């Protein structure tokens, strides 16, 4: 492979890429505005893998949607390289739990989709090489001409990942990407993700329910509270990259899991007590 076809590996540095600055979000409801996110401050640095973990329905996805450009903060500001997020863009690859694979395009057509858009014209000359590279990397080369209806859940998620990578984003935003997969496929996808990130690093924000997944993949874990989402604790994960499955057996992994699980369970209980969606005042 020519050197210029290989994207630069993103090294972990102290440069802040994503900053939540005292961010709050209210959603309008029939009973008045509902506070979904409150007073969140968080910095994500270059090359970091940050997981956000917390009870379902607490507002985690809203945090990611603000970085993705789908939701505007009601208070405070979300900064991307020191500029407020104004909308979605190809610099941020988003992976959704429901894949969002385009059913009317073949596997190759899906990966090519972003590269055929005007916004990614700079990659157009190398389009075929880029597409082939990610089809091979995600193990989809043999299925290039198939329609997604023939693919399993794991393959669809790999396709979504290939499609996001193809436009060379600097950020990867993942909203419970492996939540719909069975345990074995999920574990294989985690390893694949680590492998891809080892060759082409990104600054990653992952929303997850799984404590094990968060520890295995992340450099830092943000535990958020029951709704409205606030930062409860930020935990550094002490394992170096590249990581191997064997870290699951490490005693520090077990300790970390116990510690985080206890925090998350507390927040789940708090969330369960919010029987009815409480309005602000």
């Amino acid at each position, binding site marked *: 492979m020519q050197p210029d076809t290989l994207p630069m590996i993103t090294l972990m540095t102290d440069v802040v890429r994503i900053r939540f600055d005292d961010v709050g979000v209210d959603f309008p409801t029939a009973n008045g505005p509902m506070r979904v996110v409150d007073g969140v401050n968080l910095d994500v640095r270059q090359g970091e893998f940050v997981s956000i973990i917390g009870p379902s329905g607490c507002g985690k996805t809203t945090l990611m949607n603000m970085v*993705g*450009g*789908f939701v505007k903060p009601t208070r405070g500001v979300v900064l991307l390289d020191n500029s407020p997020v104004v*909308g*979605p*863009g*190809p610099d*941020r*690859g*988003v992976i*959704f739990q*429901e894949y*969002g694979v*385009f*059913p*009317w*395009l073949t596997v190759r057509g899906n990966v090519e*989709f*972003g590269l*055929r*858009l*005007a*916004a*990614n014209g700079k990659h157009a000359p190398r389009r075929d090489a880029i597409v082939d590279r990610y089809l091979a990397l995600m193990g989809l080369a043999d299925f290039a001409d198939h*329609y*997604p*209806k023939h693919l399993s859940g794991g393959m669809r998620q790999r396709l*979504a990942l290939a*499609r*996001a990578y193809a*436009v060379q984003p600097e950020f990867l935003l993942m909203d419970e990407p492996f939540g719909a997969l069975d345990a074995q496929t999920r574990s294989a996808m985690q390893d694949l993700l680590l492998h891809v990130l080892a060759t082409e690093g990104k600054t990653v924000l992952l929303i997850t329910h799984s404590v094990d997944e968060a520890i295995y993949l992340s450099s830092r874990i943000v535990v958020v509270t029951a709704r409205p989402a606030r930062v409860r604790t930020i935990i550094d994960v002490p394992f170096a990259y590249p990581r191997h499955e064997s870290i699951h057996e490490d005693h520090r992994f077990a300790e970390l899991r116990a510690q985080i699980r206890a925090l998350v369970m507390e927040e789940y209980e708090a969330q369960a007590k919010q029987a009815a969606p409480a309005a602000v005042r």
Partner: protein
Amino acid sequence: MVDSTFVTLQPQARHPLHRVALIAAPWLAIVVLWYAVRASGLVNPALVPAPHAVLAKFVELARDRLGLDVWMSTERVFVGVFLGVLVAVPVGFAIGWYRSVRTFVDPLINFFRALPPIALIPLVIVYFGIGEVAKIAILFYASFFAGVIVMVEGIGQISPIYVRVAETLGASDAEIFTRVIVPLAVPHILTAVRVALGVAWATLVASELIAAQQGLGALIQNASSFFQLDIIYVGIICIGLIALAMDLLLRAATRRLVAWQDRIA
């Protein structure tokens, strides 16, 4: 081409003649039932012409005016459906895509859809006369409302995630429309055409009640004035066969155009 392993796996596809027999069987059953009803004496045989008599009449008419009748009716249905769907696609799209539009247009659509086209014939005669325009107007009305309903339902079911994904990949609004929404709308447009064709054929006789000289509806109408039951049967069977042929053609087109769909009509 059929793979040999498939042939052994699917016994019903063992022989092409087998398939032909399966397709022909229900039709033969109808013919047999038809003869049986005549023979049973339950119905006055004078009121039920025999299948062979209808066939003979068909051959006789085919040498005379039937070709023109079929052509006129098919043309009217085509023009009515073409215009109806042409307008139904953008209107149905707008209503299905913009929920705010839907809330106040829905009752309107349901009001007009519920009106049988036949009930409108007196008004159509007043406003459009009894010429070709009047017949096309009735067929247009029938196809438009059938098509609009299909489009609204279909477009309303499109998941917003595809638009979101396209946005994150850098698509502009125009790119989202041409590369995401149009491909997703194609299967619904094809369904709209199929449904509109069905409704239009059903409405054809009504539209040709308006003083038509040619057309299958006119053929049936004239025959009924003279109590020519065999001709009525010929007309009805022709309408059914043409509708069937069009549906088969459209299904074949659908299979080619939207091979990506999970289930194909």
